[in-house]
């Protein structure tokens, strides 16, 4: 800062306070009251978290929170799954990073190189809620095993990333194939220990949310396109499905999936409870996704379609290459909002007897050594798990938005 610029920060800060907080007597009163309320809230939160809160209930039941009643002898299956998923994610990130780098080079604007350590630090800052949560979990756990598992997972991700960046260009298809192959391989592996109808904890929450999100997107897309179709029959089916499932409360669908489906389908072909409830979440969310996507499709100017048509592109290609990419980019915020909503709505499975995170928080207060006085701690921890998930989703979607929006408008 040069000598000619503004006065010292302290002076300006005092001046700022006078101007914005204490300009009139009424301003001063409002400022003081607000400050007092804020102070009480912050102080009570700190006192609860660090002093009065009895976090024993969480520490003792950490396993229950995270993976429900998964058999202890088979926990290694979870570890293997975690490491494999992590390595795959790293691999895909590596492949994508390499392609981005090559593309940037071709465009004449090569990306600056960063060291591996720099990248890891950057990623840790980006995903800080996850990092903080994992650190907290490790602090709460009593053995060394969780730390080793965490290290193995991180190492797998780094290894995957490095290998992915080394793969030749024709390995790019792996980035599309692996996410499809992985569930097919991992699900039988995980369910070998115990049927998945007895899954619980955060594992169940993430599983329900992830599968429903992946499945509801293509279904919602198809419904949205069906609703805009020029074929009357297709349009009627699209409108019917969308309006029916948007009009029914989700909790009714969840209950129906568990109870009522049994009246219509014979037991022999009735899929498991988890599958049924995933179908309920998927169709319900797909109806909302369809309306979001339809809004996006309408936001693309008519001239875009006309320009593509005038070039002789087929209706299919006009939609796939010109209209949809723009429509989807426009609706990322709404879409992610819907996904976050879905993530939290998975707690509704408690009505059909699943032991998800929220049910765990309720159940542990009924253990003999704890009581309802511990309810605040038990639910606060469950809330933290959900917040970390939702906030990360939200942040990553903003990042995606920015990346896709580069240089376009």
């Amino acid at each position: 800062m040069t000598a000619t610029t503004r006065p010292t920060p302290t002076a300006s800060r005092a001046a700022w306070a006078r101007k914005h907080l204490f300009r009139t007597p009424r301003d001063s009163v409002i400022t003081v009251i607000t400050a007092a309320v804020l102070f009480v809230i912050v102080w009570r939160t700190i006192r609860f978290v660090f002093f009065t809160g009895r976090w024993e209930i969480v520490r003792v039941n950490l396993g229950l929170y995270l993976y429900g009643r998964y058999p202890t002898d088979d926990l290694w299956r979870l570890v293997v799954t975690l490491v494999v998923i992590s390595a795959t994610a790293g691999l895909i990130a590596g492949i994508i990073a390499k392609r981005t780098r090559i593309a940037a080079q071709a465009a004449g604007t090569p990306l600056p190189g960063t060291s591996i350590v720099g990248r890891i630090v950057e990623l840790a800052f980006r995903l800080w809620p996850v990092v903080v949560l994992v650190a907290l979990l490790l602090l709460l756990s009593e053995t060394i095993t969780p730390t080793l598992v965490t290290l193995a997972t991180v190492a797998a991700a780094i290894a995957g990333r490095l290998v992915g960046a080394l793969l030749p260009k024709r390995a790019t298809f792996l980035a599309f194939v692996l996410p499809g192959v992985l569930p097919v391989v991992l699900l039988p592996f995980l369910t070998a220990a115990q049927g998945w109808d007895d899954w619980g904890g955060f594992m169940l929450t993430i599983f329900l949310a992830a599968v429903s999100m992946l499945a509801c997107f293509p279904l919602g897309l198809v419904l949205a396109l069906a609703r805009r179709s020029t074929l009357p029959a297709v349009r009627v089916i699209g409108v019917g499905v969308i309006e029916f499932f948007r009009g029914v409360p989700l909790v009714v669908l969840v209950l129906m999936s568990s109870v009522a489906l049994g009246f219509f389908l014979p037991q022999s072909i009735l899929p498991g409870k988890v599958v049924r409830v995933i179908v309920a979440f998927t169709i319900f969310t797909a109806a909302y996704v369809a309306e979001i996507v339809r809004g996006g499709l309408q936001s693309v100017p008519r001239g875009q379609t006309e320009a593509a048509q005038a070039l002789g592109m087929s209706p299919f290609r006009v939609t796939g290459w010109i209209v949809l990419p723009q429509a989807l980019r426009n609706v990322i915020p709404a879409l992610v909002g819907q996904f976050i909503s879905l993530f939290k709505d998975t707690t509704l499975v408690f009505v059909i007897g699943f032991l998800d995170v929220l049910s765990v928080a309720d159940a542990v207060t009924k253990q003999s050594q704890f009581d309802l006085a511990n309810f605040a701690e038990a639910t606060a921890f469950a809330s933290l798990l959900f917040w970390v998930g939702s906030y990360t989703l939200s942040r990553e979607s903003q990042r995606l938005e920015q990346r896709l929006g580069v240089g376009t408008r």
Partner: protein
Amino acid sequence: MSDTPGTDAVFADATQVAGTGGVMIELDGVDKFFDDFQALKDINLKVGKQEVVVVIGPSGSGKSTMIRCINRLEKHDNGRIVVDGTELSDDIRNIQAIRRETGMVFQSFNLFPHLSVLENITIAPRQVRNMPRAEAEAQAQELLTRVKIPEQANKYPGQLSGGQQQRVAIARALAMKPKVMLFDEPTSALDPEMIGEVLDTMQSLAEEGMTMICVTHEMGFARNVADRVLFMADGEVVEVGTAEHFFTDPQEERTKLFLSQIL
């Protein structure tokens, strides 16, 4: 461009083609309705190969509707439209076949904002003509050089000026190697200082022998480039002639009124 008719040449009707190269586009008794409103009334027009036709007229006169019927962005209700010997029908294959041969440039550019300039130009040849990527990109670079912005290939449309965007739009249409180019008020959305660069591009295209129909109010362009000028009003072709004819000796009252307003 064909041999330019003399300054005093007056065409009896719009089906009299300038030059001798044969007919590229033929409109025969074309009507077009928007609900109860008749936008085109019995349009008869022939455009010869390598001919440049400029269409002028007040807004709402059906100029844009007419050229949008030629590549079926609007469906005509009566009459026949024939492009390079193929009659436009309701069959989507037939429509796409005609669209492939017919480039169009819009008033509002309509570039694809999510694709780079290079991708804007290569997408149609690659998707519609199955051209290999390398070949399509080489061709795109050539076209960009032709419209004098080779250095913008990797930018996005939003990063270009209006004049540059419209030149990319021309390059995008040319990438399909069309036999006809349709221009729908290509300079109307541009700032005055950018109009020249787009008209220059269009003029050199005409000089290379492209068949063109241009809806525009640029009378200077009409005078320099057009073989024939068509004046339309209320969905009808009112008067046909050379640009000189319109400047010096317009016949119809409606033509005189319109010209007095724009000149």
